């Protein structure tokens, strides 16, 4: 029987690497999207950290500094 186990092991490792890298890329894009969403919502919604009466005014982030 030929001794070629190396090729089988390499193929299984390669498959794990390809699927792993792809799953990581989806996870990374998901995190970037969550940050974008949070940024839009921060800019749009009245912040809990903003002073009373400031709703409707642009959020400059002053209250969080």
């Amino acid at each position, binding site marked *: *029987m030929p001794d*070629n186990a190396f*090729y*089988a092991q390499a*193929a299984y490792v390669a498959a794990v690497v*390809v*699927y792993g890298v792809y*799953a990581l890329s989806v996870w990374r894009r*998901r995190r970037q999207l969550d940050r974008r969403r949070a940024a839009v919502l921060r800019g749009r919604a009245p912040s809990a950290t903003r002073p009373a009466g400031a709703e409707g005014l642009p959020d400059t982030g002053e209250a969080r500094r």
Partner: protein
Amino acid sequence: MAKELSAPATPGSVHAARPRVDWLFVVAVLAVAATFVRALAFTPLETVQGPAQKIFYVHVPAAFVGLYIGCGLVAVSSALYLWLKDERLDRMAESSAEVGLAFLSVVLVTGPLWGRPIWGTWWTWDARLTLTLFLWFIVLGYLILRGAVEDRAMRARYSAVLGILAALLVPFIHLSVYLFRTLHPMPIVLKPSAPSLSREMLETLLMSLGAFLLLFVALLRARYRLATDRDAVEALEAGAA
């Protein structure tokens, strides 16, 4: 804002907060790991090819899922999009193409690793290998095209046409071993007569097919959710501007 965050993920609205752990993906990873253990440790060796034959349990399921399920979904979703103009179908085609490309990449990496010890060469320009590589480039081009066209309706229409054309290659890839002289072996499972495999090998192959299918569904679901939420955030950004 709490109401917005819990709203359904539809374009034009803020997407719902997703669960931190994707249990379907975890189950799929465990299923693939169990399949690999069974294939490497508990499935008999093929006497002529030796241990390299075990690449079969990765290469064939990846090809089956990537070619028939992935490209099939791209074609069906694209055709339905051209008919119904429903953005969900465009997102499904986009997601299937990307996940399918990952499976086709596994096929193109494991194939040469199997060919080298058995055929004595990493690669040969025969019909099946060349057509599969050609399909990989078309699907890659499909995804690049999607990134290059800004208008959403135009992007969906162009990519739907390309997606259908790409999927037309799949029957030729399947039949290429009958139509052309090729080093690639004939199908030993998807053929009119009974499978030419021992019972243990067939069981491992079927288990592997199930695990890879589950992995495809888990990745497709994650990618489809990403596309849905991206569109919702883009609509939100446009509204905020």
